[in-house]
């Protein structure tokens, strides 16, 4: 819990010496509470006060970094239970697992697929965050070899999964520079695992399926050894168990400020799934409900693409839709005689339309109206995409200097605007396009004669 200004004041020297450049200790304390000053500005704070302030400034869920730059990812540091309360900050990392008992070829294929996979959605490139390597063979040398192989094939962060500390260290000797996530410290091996995490400066997962109390006790023990970059695995795999335990962990961290469980959580949806689809649905649940790292055992684009889309949805700031800059966008070297289409600046709308215009084969102009990031019908219903607004945009962007034809194509969903728009833009012909962007290509073929 962050401290209030008064609480901080109590920890300061109260001498009002002004060396911090504030008139009084109280004024400085108030600024600290608002995060507008740094504690280091006061040369006289006691060690004790520093520690208390540090502890209080700690986020309720620790931010943990996995991997070394440039492809490392960060998870944790969430501050709300429901995204509408503020936003979710650090998108769930999707990690694909390979096993050291698989053939080198199949490992190589999987790793390459996962590493090179990227898919674009509303102007953002989405992909996977890491590769997990499971010591299934039980063999130390095989695990180390596999870690080395995977490392040579990918720049994604790694996660090493072995229960035997000696085996873990064998792989770490190859891969420690990448700062892999170690999985896992358990009640049986936590001491040597924590020692490895400390020695190699790697984050470590703690797995304790016996319930949240034993998990919390174990985490306490590990953190007492000085290891702080921790990821929790409550060991509960099924749909309901996962929902319940992840909800409780999130609530304990945020509502009860319960430190021992204030860490990001990892899940393994395939371990409770009987099909690829089920794995995807459970992974989906966990993206929405509080998993920071989700380890997938299958990789196929038709599974990963919807999951990445869901992650983007859930982690979008509810206060501001993803937008594009209003303006006129050319597609395929348009000429003054090329078609002119009109849309809004909601990213989803813009990219749906842009994609279709691009693949239609017709060089075109796309005029993007500023609707404050709202879709066609939403902005129309909100009075932000009406005839006067569109007419104004046509003038503002000097469209008449770009096109010679004075024809403009409206989204089919707002066909009702046609008459009024023709009045606003005298001399212009307003055409009504299809409702769905998918039909833009066939519409242009049918209706556009320049």
């Amino acid at each position: 819990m962050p401290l209030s200004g008064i609480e901080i004041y109590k920890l300061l020297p109260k001498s009002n010496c002004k060396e911090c450049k504030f008139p009084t200790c109280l004024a400085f304390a108030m600024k600290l509470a608002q995060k507008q000053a740094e504690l280091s500005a006061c040369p006289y704070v006691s060690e004790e006060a520093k520690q208390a302030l540090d502890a209080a400034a700690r986020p309720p869920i620790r931010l943990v970094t996995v991997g070394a730059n440039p492809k490392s990812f960060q998870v944790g540091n969430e501050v709300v239970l429901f995204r509408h309360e503020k936003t979710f900050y650090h998108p769930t990392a999707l990690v694909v697992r390979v096993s050291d008992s698989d053939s080198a070829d199949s490992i190589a294929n999987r790793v390459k697929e996962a590493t090179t996979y990227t898919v674009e959605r509303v102007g953002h490139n989405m992909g996977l965050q890491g590769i997990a390597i499971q010591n299934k063979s039980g063999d130390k040398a095989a695990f180390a070899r596999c870690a080395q192989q995977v490392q040579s094939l990918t720049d994604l962060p790694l996660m090493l999964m072995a229960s035997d500390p000696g085996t873990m260290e064998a792989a770490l000797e190859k891969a420690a520079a990448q700062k892999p996530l170690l999985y896992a410290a358990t009640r049986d091996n936590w001491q040597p695992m924590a020692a490895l995490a400390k020695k190699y400066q790697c984050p470590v997962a703690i797995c304790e399926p016996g319930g949240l109390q034993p998990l919390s006790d174990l985490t306490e023990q590990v953190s007492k050894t000085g290891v702080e970059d921790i990821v929790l695995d409550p060991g509960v795999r099924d749909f309901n168990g996962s929902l319940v335990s992840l909800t409780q962990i999130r609530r304990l961290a945020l509502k009860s400020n319960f430190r021992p469980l204030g860490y990001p959580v990892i899940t393994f949806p395939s371990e409770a799934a009987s099909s690829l689809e089920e794995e995807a649905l459970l992974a989906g649940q966990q993206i929405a409900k509080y998993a920071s790292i989700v380890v997938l055992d299958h990789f196929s684009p038709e599974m990963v693409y919807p999951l990445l889309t869901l992650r983007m949805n859930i982690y979008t700031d509810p206060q501001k839709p993803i937008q594009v800059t209003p303006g006129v966008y050319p597609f395929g070297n348009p000429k003054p005689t090329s078609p002119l289409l009109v849309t809004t600046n909601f990213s989803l709308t813009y990219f749906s339309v842009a994609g279709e215009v691009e693949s239609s084969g017709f060089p075109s102009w796309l005029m993007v109206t500023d609707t404050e990031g709202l879709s066609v019908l939403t902005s129309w219903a909100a009075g932000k995409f009406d005839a006067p607004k569109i007419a104004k945009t046509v003038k503002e962007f000097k469209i008449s200097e770009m096109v010679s034809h004075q024809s403009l194509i409206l989204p089919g969903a707002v066909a009702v605007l046609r008459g009024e728009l023709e009045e606003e833009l005298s001399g212009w012909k307003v055409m009504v396009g299809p409702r769905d962007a998918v039909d833009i290509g066939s519409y242009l073929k049918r209706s556009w004669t320049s």
Partner: protein
Amino acid sequence: MPAVELPVQKWPGRIHEVTLGGNGRKKVVVGGEATLPFLHFEGAIPHRPAIAIEVHDRNPAEWAENLRQVWGSALKSPAAWAKKASELGADLIALRLSSAHPENGNTGAEAAKKNVAQVLEAVDLPVIVLGPEVAEKDNEVLMAAAEAARGQRLAIGDCMEKNYRTIAAACIANGHVAIGKTPIEINLAKQLNILISDVGVSRDAILMDPTTGALGYGLEYSYSVMERLRLAGLQGDAMTAMPMICTVGEEAWRQKEARVSEGVPTTWGQAKERAILWEGITAISLLEAGADIVVLRHPRSVELARATIDKLMAGAGQRSA
């Protein structure tokens, strides 16, 4: 070692229970939750969310080929379609009277009566009847449907801001449940529930449809508005404590990801599976946000949603609080 005290929230409110069917027909009860979705440790969840399969009173030529194929010849008659849906494990049939849409045939009251009667005859499941979403036509065909199914306790919708009176009155007169639909806004949803109540519909006869945005197409908005509505209901606001219905299939299958198999990036993967997951993930996400009824289209997504609901309800026995 600090002791873990499991946080259990006390919710003063409870979601209203709404019964559909009965009277010789199977009964489905939704709502009644005293906690957030599937958190059985905290409060009772007496009824599982229900799955409705969407059936039309006309052969929907615009549907994706993949969907048309699985339903095959059943698409030719609403009765055959409903029967097949029932065999495939629907809890409810959602009959959309889309033939009444001015662009799809503009049929009227007579056709609506006939089609509703045929579906009621073909299945013993409770039925939801939805209009073509054109205000005047909705009034016409939903009134007719309400009369034709007097006493069968259908759910009828949608009551919207413009036309809730007529439909709500028809529900009262014929013993049905009214569905109110509002565009993803908590205050509008509440306001419409109040308006429908003021007409005289009792609280156990209202469902709300907060409007569904599909995965990638506004899902996040629906998800958050539903979470907020559910929280408000549990906090004791009786006028937001109606069970929620989501037209998942309709929205998911409108999207390019579910419809198009050619000319899309290879990174979208195989089309059939992608389409099912598009519908399935939309459904599960909204169930976790509080949906009490999801209306689906593809038999495989129905199967997946059913299995998932089974698993999410499995914790019901372990209630400790």
